[in-house]
């Protein structure tokens, strides 16, 4: 199974969700700003990389985890990807989860300052602070995804 976390730019909320999913960030405590900023892909993608699918690793069940930034209309863009999968593949093997709505305003503002306006020295710590404020929502998202995936994996294996 392939699991996709999507958001605006694949720089903040989807990266954090994927990191929690893969155990690179804790799910039982708040990470520090430093832990968040030291993720190799946190607050890194450029405008030209919007839409590119980034492979992050495999989870404990062997599922591949990806992130993708789908711009300002991510739900519509996600629908296009899902319809392509309906045409050419098995929709059960591809799961999409919106991480953007988990991020509170401070995280979004920090992300925009850093990625859109190039104010990294202000934007990146603000985005990380926003992630900390939104962390419980991101952990809840990942836990619900893992539960869904666990059930689906069990069903698929018979």
């Amino acid at each position: 199974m392939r699991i996709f976390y999507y958001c605006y730019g694949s720089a903040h909320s989807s990266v954090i969700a994927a990191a929690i999913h893969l155990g690179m960030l804790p799910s039982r405590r708040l990470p520090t700003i430093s832990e968040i900023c030291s993720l190799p892909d946190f607050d890194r993608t450029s405008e030209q990389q919007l839409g590119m699918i980034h492979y992050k690793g495999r989870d404990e069940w062997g599922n591949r985890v990806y992130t993708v930034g789908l711009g300002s209309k991510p739900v519509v863009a996600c629908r296009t990807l899902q319809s392509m999968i309906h045409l050419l593949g098995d929709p059960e093997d591809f799961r999409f989860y919106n991480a953007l709505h988990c991020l509170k305003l401070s995280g979004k503002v920090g992300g925009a300052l850093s990625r859109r306006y190039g104010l990294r020295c202000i934007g990146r710590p603000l985005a990380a602070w926003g992630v900390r404020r939104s962390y419980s929502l991101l952990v809840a998202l990942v836990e619900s995804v893992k539960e869904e995936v666990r059930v689906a994996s069990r069903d698929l294996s018979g």
Partner: protein
Amino acid sequence: MKGRVYLSEDSGGCALIAAALDVMSDRKEMPTAQEVALWGMQTGMQWSRTGWLWPAGEARGRSVFFCGVESRAPILERSLHCLMPMLGVSPLHWEFVRLRIKAPRVRSWRELVREYPRLSRLIREEMGP
């Protein structure tokens, strides 16, 4: 499978017309607005499902699809290019036609029929001979 996808940055009206003109290109006369609207309904296209890839038929050896993307088609095109190898399909076999013209106010069959003469002319100009 080789495919051609028309993308327009609206609810899909311009992509629908472009796909219709493509699959009906063998005809001597231009399809009328009513014909295109009827054809569009037969594809299953729903205005409320912006983003869905609707099958339009065959033209020039390719399966034709159309899709309204509301905003920034290049982002979506990149995603689809990344996704295709995961589906065992080569992106080289697929052609994406990003339309410059868009009609964000066309969100129903009635509006499509009303705007068709102007949009079809502009789309024909954009697509060339």
